[in-house]
């Protein structure tokens, strides 16, 4: 457990097989009950199992955040694909999702059976209020990094107004605002710089 984190490539364990990938991702998903999926995945994949260096793990986070799809899922895909291509990606994904998703499906069956009971509905009304607060915090969480960029704030505000005031659906918003924003931020002159990856 107490390995120094930036592993040298020669310290790595041999590449995992499909079974190892499945079990490793299963371990990540079971360890992270209660949160911190990303931290657990780093601890298990880099420190305990020594499948990849910290550097390539962080590259994976960058790619996972950049591309569409849930970040944690994309990270599992990255880890699987690194070692076993498409099949590895599918196996890693299955390992990460099988237990929590099946659990959620059971919860769903119970929910649809019992949600009309007044007592269940009362408790859920409270839980929903808390969950709405979590949803509200998502935007504020990433707002900090855009404070110094007026154009980013204009783009964000325009997107917000289009969706909330004019009820434009997501796909037209992305297809319209995406190319505009990309044109504005197209790198000019200087060599592109990669921002350091942040933790999820």
């Amino acid at each position: 457990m107490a390995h120094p984190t930036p592993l040298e490539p020669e310290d790595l364990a041999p590449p995992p097989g499909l079974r190892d990938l499945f079990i490793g991702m299963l371990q990540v998903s079971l360890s992270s009950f209660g949160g911190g999926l990303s931290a657990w995945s780093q601890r298990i994949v880099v420190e305990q199992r020594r499948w990849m260096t910290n550097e390539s793990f962080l590259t994976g986070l960058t790619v996972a955040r950049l591309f569409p799809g849930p970040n944690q899922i994309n990270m599992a895909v990255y880890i699987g694909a690194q070692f076993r291509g498409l099949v590895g990606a599918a196996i890693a994904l299955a390992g990460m999702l099988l237990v929590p998703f099946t659990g959620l499906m059971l919860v769903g069956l119970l929910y649809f059976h019992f949600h009309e009971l007044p007592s269940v509905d009362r408790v859920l009304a409270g839980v929903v209020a808390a969950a709405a607060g979590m949803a509200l915090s998502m935007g504020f969480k990433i707002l900090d990094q855009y404070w110094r960029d007026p154009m980013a704030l204009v783009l964000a505000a325009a997107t917000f107004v289009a969706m909330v005031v004019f009820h434009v659906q997501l796909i037209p918003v992305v297809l319209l605002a995406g190319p505009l924003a990309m044109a504005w931020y197209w790198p000019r002159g200087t060599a592109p710089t990669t921002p350091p990856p942040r933790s999820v």
Partner: protein
Amino acid sequence: MPLSLTVCTPLALTDLGNLLQVLWTFLSLSLFSLGGGNTLLSEYHHLSVVQYCWLSSSQFADIYALAEAAPGPSSMIVGLLGMGAAWKEGAWWSLLSGYGAEAAILLPSTLLMVVACLSWNKFKNSPWRVAFERGLGPITLGILFAVGLKILQTADTNIPGVIVSVLVCVLMLRTRISPLWFMAVAGLLGGLGLINR
């Protein structure tokens, strides 16, 4: 937020037709899940409550809360949406629809991600990547605020409920307390009848 009394009329579809519609819906949304996937929530609401009548608005809010409370990636809400879409066809169809919906939302983005991993070195310094990364960030920001507001409206609670929502939002930003605690306490308040909708 006034309670909408308009009755949503679902399309007349066979069980299989309904399943195919669920699969197609999520397959076609997959590549638009920017910024980790939560950007799709208001689209999920529109499709499942307004367009296809899979769920009522308060059921949507419940499902969102369940998916947030459950361990694992929060995008698993799609499985519950799929389940709701087929609930009246019975438990087996709804399980099939739930697993199918989750597979559908993940398949295209996963395939793209595999391609991205295998060719990352080629385009990590390409101007397309730089422009995409920097340009999509502010749009994601705007969408997340719109999504937060939508969920707040969907929760549709009384004044104590709104206070709890705002308080949770502040605590999420200022502390590292696990959100499960917030949901547990708020659930208790709801059970005691202090938060209504």
